[in-house]
């Protein structure tokens, strides 16, 4: 480390001293200012510090007196174009192209961890997103917008359940088992991921920033490589998303009002067996069960009713249960904001209300959001910014995933179509009383969506204060205090009526409640120094330290068997079955950080960052740290360099080339999420008789240390034709090391596992983004943009060469050295034994020791021992796509705007737990129509095995039969808007729009939708646990400025 800094310092000092000094110049500079259509622009102010400013004439030309040999020329157009700053050296003539205001200007500032920087001088790989898009597209959480818009960021919408956000992986991962989500920084306050502890609601998933109203966002920047993220040291390994809200920039009072409404459509349904086909399947299954015919005919009498039986009418239906749970849903969103103030004090206030109904009946998400920000000049030398966000949200949802009793999707697929949602009376009159569950099992889907209560309430309060002061002309300080208080309450009531029994039949109704509180205090203080020498030497230095204290508390209670479904309170359960519990975690983090940046002559850019971090999560003897006193300190750093070759004198003068810049950065960032209890020996609570007792916790590792990510990035930025053509391309290698896994211990040592930093993997990838303004006319413009990314993550090291994980959904994941990360691990399905002879000839037996028969699955016998067991398992693919990206087309004609946005992934594999459940044919659940192709007679050629009660041969076991290609291409958004930015009808602005989201999707996937993310756990990516599918949405909106 010392050597590295010595080298950087020497280079910088050398550059300062050896580069030629500048002599006085008394010449003039003539030039022409053109717009992006090569038309001259008049009335543009052109100035050089120390010289009289001049204005361009009608032909766009100017002549200005020079002061120095090398100096900056400031070009400030009146409107429609972005200002620009150009270093002039020895030229006497110059042509300056102005880019339109509605094109991203490389000369504007970008929000970074060190507040703001000039985009074109960034050495980091980043993406600035346009927050006005939030008005047109129904994103309820800001990170959803990253999908398809940021190269290198693999984003998956969690589900169609409103308010649940998205899972975001920026250029891979830094851990196998802990947090891989980027660090979100809202108004300077890092937001800890409150999804780190399991919620009560199956499939419930909460984005860390779901409580931030996207409409409040003024700026949003995604930072992808170590050049920027190293500044956040142990928190930076997963990339950073910086958000600034409601920034009150101007003193002019602006009042905006937005209303939008829309419709979410129920999805296309999966084709299921009708009642007759179901009965045939059920008969086959019962016949295969070995249960005596008279016994099963007695036990499942409803399958064998005659028209004159009393219950015949109850079972004489052909119900499409999916109709019972889905509906088209309304979205409503209203927002009011006001900004204003004067030179001393500026303010911004917004109030928003969103109600987003889900496509399951009786589900919705609503959010009330109040945000107040202010900027005050307390003294001439001291400014204060404050931001306060208060959000309350309610989510009425349904459970998803493995909860077979309460997942409406599974229930609607499995429920026998013979039945009806409602009861009949003794006169065979249909009542409006939801029917109970009969002997065929499966909860009544109508009961799930009408009678159960699954809700989550969230309260979040994020205030922050930032003081900025001038110590001297070049030396400033900032000090930020922030607080993040998040309280979420989850409540579930599963009634008796219409639901399968729970807990093996012991429980007929259940109330569950959980209260989670995350409280974070944050403070960040820094001083920074800026100085430009001789026009060409620019130095920026920052030194700061920050700390963050986090406290998480969780309490829960379960009450079961209340007196009736009317008693839904926790205190109404049967005493013996009550359960109460809780959890608690505290973790702290602090860092001392510094950045030093230098640029020379607008050609050479250098930057070095270091962050020395402490964390309560790592061990007291943490490996790979330095020790200060007794405290282990992790060192994270980056060095970055840029070469704007287009500014070199030897570079050919090509008209229209704005910039060609090469960038390279290398650095190490960290992930301190190694658990709060893994680094010290402790006792935990258990129970013996009625005594609360203490038993040893897991084996501690006091050398447990930060998970690290070494990142190398090589990039190229190319810009031409007044930025009408932009290309950015990057190649990166991210090597994640010290990744925590839990190593199995010898059984006789008294511990199951040992947490250790003994895994490593490498993500290599390329990403490219391009933007072209094809047409640029005053009334018409046409832009297209595309980004594409490809990366693969390969395991480099892991204890014993491979680790296999059992993952919910009766599946396994393997991480094996040399193989893709989190590969599915199971059997290879080769077909079905068509005949007894074929089965006999194969002479294979199952893992249970039974010989395969005709109609059973054929699995690949990889080790040729004729027994299908663990030794025959193979890698079956991974959730990681081969490539992914997005494409947009924006067209404007006068005030009419058309936006088309397409997004897709290619080459990822999906494990469809849903389809497995829907085609396994092992019990009396209804199944997919695909099961009509099941093996039923000797010599039948098919790929669907026979129906067998309980599946003794493992025909439906985890295999590549359930792995599907997850590629898709989706028209994510199509919007048409009429946007007038000047006064009209007494309004200062007016915008009317219509938009459609998820309009169509090209995919071979056999489930509802190929996009889902059950949780943020890496191990569960790519598994279709039957979440609420994404829906097509249609919106219309009106925004007026007063």
């Amino acid at each position, binding site marked *: 480390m010392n050597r590295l800094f010595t080298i950087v310092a020497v280079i910088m000092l050398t550059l300062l001293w050896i580069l030629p000094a500048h002599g006085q110049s008394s010449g003039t500079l003539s030039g022409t200012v053109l717009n992006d259509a090569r038309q001259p622009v008049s009335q543009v102010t052109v100035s050089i510090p120390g010289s009289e400013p001049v204005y361009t004439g009608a032909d766009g030309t100017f002549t200005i007196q020079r002061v120095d040999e090398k100096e900056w020329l400031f070009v400030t157009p009146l409107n429609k174009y972005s200002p620009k700053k150009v270093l002039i050296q020895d030229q006497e003539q110059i042509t300056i192209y102005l880019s339109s205001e509605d094109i991203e200007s490389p000369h504007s500032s970008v929000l970074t961890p060190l507040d703001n920087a000039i985009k074109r001088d960034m050495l980091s790989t980043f993406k600035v997103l346009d927050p006005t898009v939030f008005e047109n597209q129904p994103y309820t959480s800001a990170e959803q917008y990253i999908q398809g818009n940021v190269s290198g960021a693999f984003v998956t919408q969690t589900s169609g359940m409103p308010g649940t956000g998205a899972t975001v992986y920026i250029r891979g991962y830094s851990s196998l088992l802990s947090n891989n989500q980027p660090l979100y920084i809202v108004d300077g306050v890092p937001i800890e991921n409150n999804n780190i502890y399991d919620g009560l609601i199956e499939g419930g998933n909460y984005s860390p920033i779901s409580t931030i109203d996207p409409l409040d966002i003024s700026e949003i920047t995604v930072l992808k490589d170590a050049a920027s993220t190293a500044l956040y040291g142990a928190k930076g390994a997963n990339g950073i998303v910086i958000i600034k809200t409601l920034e009150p920039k101007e003193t002019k009072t602006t009042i905006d009002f937005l209303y939008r409404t829309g419709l979410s459509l129920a999805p296309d349904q999966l084709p299921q067996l009708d009642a007759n086909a179901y009965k045939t399947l059920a008969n086959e299954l019962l016949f295969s069960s070995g249960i005596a015919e008279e016994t099963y005919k007695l036990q499942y009498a409803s399958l064998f009713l005659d028209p004159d039986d009393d219950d015949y009418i109850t079972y004489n239906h052909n119900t499409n249960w999916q109709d019972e749970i889905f509906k088209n849903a309304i979205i409503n969103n209203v927002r009011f904001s006001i900004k204003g103030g004067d030179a001393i004090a500026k303010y911004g206030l917004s109030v928003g209300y969103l109600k987003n109904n889900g496509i399951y009946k009786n589900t919705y998400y609503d959010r009330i959001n109040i945000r107040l920000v202010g900027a005050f000049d307390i003294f001439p030398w001291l400014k204060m910014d404050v931001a306060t966000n208060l959000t309350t949200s309610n989510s009425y949802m349904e459970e998803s995933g493995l909860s077979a009793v309460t997942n409406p999707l599974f229930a609607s697929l499995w429920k026998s179509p013979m039945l009806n949602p409602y009861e009949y009376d003794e006169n065979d009159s249909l009542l409006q009383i939801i029917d109970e569950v009969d002997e065929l099992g499966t909860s009544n889907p109508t009961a799930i969506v009408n009678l159960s209560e699954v809700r989550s309430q969230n309260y979040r309060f994020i205030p922050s204060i930032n003081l900025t002061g001038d110590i001297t002309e070049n030396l400033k300080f900032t000090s930020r205090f922030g607080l993040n208080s998040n309280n979420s309450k989850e409540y579930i009531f599963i009634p008796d009526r219409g639901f399968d029994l729970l807990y093996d039949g012991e429980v007929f109704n259940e109330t569950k409640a959980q209260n989670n509180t995350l409280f974070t205090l944050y403070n960040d203080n820094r001083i920074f120094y800026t100085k430009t020498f001789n026009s060409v030497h620019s130095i920026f230095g920052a030194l700061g330290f920050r700390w963050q204290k986090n406290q998480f508390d969780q309490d829960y209670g379960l009450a079961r068997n209340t007196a009736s479904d009317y008693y839904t309170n926790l205190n109404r359960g049967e005493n013996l079955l009550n359960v109460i519990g809780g959890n608690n975690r505290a973790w702290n983090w602090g860092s001392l950080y510094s950045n030093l940046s230098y640029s020379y002559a607008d050609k050479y850019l250098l930057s070095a960052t270091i962050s020395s971090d402490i964390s309560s999560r790592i061990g007291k003897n943490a490996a790979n740290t330095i020790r200060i006193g007794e405290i282990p300190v992790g060192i994270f750093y980056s060095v970055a360099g840029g070469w704007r070759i287009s500014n070199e004198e030897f570079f050919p003068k090509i008209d229209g080339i704005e910039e060609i810049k090469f960038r390279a950065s290398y650095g190490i960032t960290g992930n301190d999420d190694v658990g709060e209890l893994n680094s010290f020996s402790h006792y935990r609570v258990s129970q013996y008789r009625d005594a609360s007792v203490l038993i040893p916790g897991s084996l501690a590792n006091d050398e447990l240390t930060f998970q690290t990510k070494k990142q190398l990035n090589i990039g190229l930025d190319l810009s031409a034709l007044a930025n009408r053509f932009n290309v950015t391309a990057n190649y990166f290698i991210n090597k994640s090391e010290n990744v925590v896994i839990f190593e199995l211990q010898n*059984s006789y040592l008294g511990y199951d596992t040992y947490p250790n930093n003994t895994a490593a993997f490498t993500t290599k990838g390329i990403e490219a983004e391009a933007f072209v303004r094809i047409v640029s006319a005053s009334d018409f413009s046409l832009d297209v943009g595309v980004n594409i990314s490809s990366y693969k993550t390969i395991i480099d090291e892991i204890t014993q060469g491979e680790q296999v994980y059992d993952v919910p959904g009766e599946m396994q994941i393997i991480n094996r050295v040399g193989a893709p990360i989190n590969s599915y691990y199971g059997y290879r399905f080769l077909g079905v034994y068509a005949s007894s002879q074929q089965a006999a000839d194969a002479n294979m037996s199952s893992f249970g020791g039974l010989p395969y028969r005709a109609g059973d699955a054929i699995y690949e016998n990889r080790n040729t021992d004729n027994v299908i067991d663990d030794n025959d398992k193979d890698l079956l693919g991974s959730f990681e796509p081969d490539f992914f990206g997005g494409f947009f087309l924006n067209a404007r004609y006068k005030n009419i705007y058309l936006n088309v946005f397409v997004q897709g992934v290619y080459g990822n594999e999906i494990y469809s737990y849903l389809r497995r459940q829907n085609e396994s044919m092992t019990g009396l659940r209804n199944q997919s129509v695909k099961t009509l192709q099941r093996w039923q007679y000797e010599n039948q050629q098919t790929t669907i095995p026979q129906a067998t009660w309980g599946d003794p041969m493992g025909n439906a076991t985890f295999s590549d039969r359930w792995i599907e290609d997850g590629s898709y291409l989706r028209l994510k958004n199509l919007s048409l808007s009429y946007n007038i930015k000047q006064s009209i009808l007494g309004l200062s602005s007016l915008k009317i729009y219509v938009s459609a989201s998820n309009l169509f999707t090209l995919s071979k996937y056999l489930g509802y939708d190929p996009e889902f993310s059950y949780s943020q756990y890496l191990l569960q990516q790519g598994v279709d646990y039957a979440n609420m599918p994404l829906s097509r949405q249609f919106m219309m909106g009106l925004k007026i400025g007063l």
Partner: protein
Amino acid sequence: MKNKFVYILLVLILITSCEDFLNPEQDLVLPESQVPADEVELRSISLGLYSLQQNLVEQIVMLGELRADLLLVTESADPDLVEINSFQISASNRYASPSNFYKLIAASNKVIRIIEIMHPEVLEEDSPVTNFHRMYGEAVAMRSWAYFYAVRIFDEIPYIPETLNTIDEINEYVNSPGSYTDSVYINFAPNGIDTDTIFDSTFVFTEKKFLNQDQMTRQCIKDIQEKIRFVGVDYSNRDQINDVTWNTTVWNEDALNALLVQMYVHIDNYNDALDILVPEFLRRTVENVNDNYVKYAIDDRFEGSKWSSIFTSIDNLEHIFTLQFQKTSSSWQLNNLQHYFSIIPPNIYSIKPSPKSVRLWESQWKNYSINTVNPENAFTIEPGTPGDFSRGYGRSYIYVDNGEVLSDNVVREMLNLKLLGFWDEVNDIMQGVDTVVHKYTIGKNAFDKDANFIVYRAPSMHLYAAEIIANRQYMDGGSFRHDISAAEDYIYTGDYIGSNDGRMGTAGRAGFPLRLGKAVDREYYYIFDPNNNEIIGSESIITTLEKQLYMEDIIMDERARELAYEGERFYDFVRIARRREKAGNNGVEWLADRISESRPANERAAIKAHLMDQNNWYLPFILK
């Protein structure tokens, strides 16, 4: 400028007040570094051992019973249970790992270390006795129990007497060179005199600290003798709740003695076992002969259906040490014993009694006509009450037809028909009928899953006494004598205590009479029809060895009846087979025959062949 510094100073003050920043308090755990010497905290840690012991119960029962002759798996059994029943146990079997034993051992080691450091007085011979001494004793006892029970399963296991608290300590242990040297090997002789103490410096094991059954048993006995002065804190008045059952659910002096007896018998050290048995469990009953509530007497307090109360509650008179499970709103301590045995949903009826197991109860009848001159002419003159009916039908097992429990009368009728040889009628009644273990279901709601696990209770000790008496020689008038006949008293009559005292022996109190006089006093024994209990022949037993072996069989049958499904059966076989093998009496084949005979005909040959290799009696899943 002054103002600026005031503000900067203010900021600095705000940011420097971060106490314990790197060690925030985690409310739900107690850092080991903060374990106080306080007795209350130490009690919590000490009681934590029982919580860990609870995790072993299923493993002990499944491995101890499913590998023996009293249980068979049903079609509902999961693969792990099938594997155990067929002796094809894979490494992934949930009962195959010694991990839970070693978690208990490691936790015991921690308690031992903490007390040794914080209260070194426990190591002083004459220090006044405190609860720290007792907790220390509990931890040593628990560790010894865990080692002993584990070594019976795995045959050769590491002995780790110290806390391996960190990965460094573990690595140091694992990687340290050397091997365990046992320089003194004791081969106990039945007479207690010819015990062979061998000083053998060549007795070296290739793997450091891996002890076999004999070595581990002796090491544990040594630990107990050297380290334990007292055992068992009096928890009966814990938290001002007067609950005397507490002391029977933790290690107490009697439980420690029971463990010692068990270990002594395992290594055939009869004299030391008797030294404990007589004053602790047997003589105690003699001295309190008129006291109806004396502990551990095998008398009419638990006769007939009263016997079942020991499975529904903690009893201070019969139970020596019972690990209590309880499903209450405050403590969900559950196990799956009821779940696997019971036929009532949601239980899954994975395991059922073997026909042999049921026959052992049903084949004992009250009265026989005995022809001592010509035993073949003996016959049954009055069918009596089969054993389980004396205890109340449905206590040990029940018959179930299509989910319905067969009534007492139907079963009696069936047995009578069987006795009369009306097999068609018997088969009609028994068509589709299953047998179900009921021991862990007595008094339980179908969902309870909190059956207690009896570690030690009195009959086990009495039957150990019988086993010792049957095998032990003693010096009388200058020559060695046996008292095999007295062993039978422990089972049937209680005569070893004294005549006419109301005590009935383990079988006697359950309604089983002495079988046609003491078998070992005669020179033959009867052979009964296993189906209808008719005497169908006899076989001579003349030599002392024959009588000893026959007596062992009787004891094994009685252990099968009395202690059925309680987790000891396979180890009973192993203990006796080892003893027989050591004495040249074909113990291996005896074990292989007895166990394989209980299995379905198509499995017998394979099971026998498997068990003829002594290595297959033990699980190989401990890494060396």
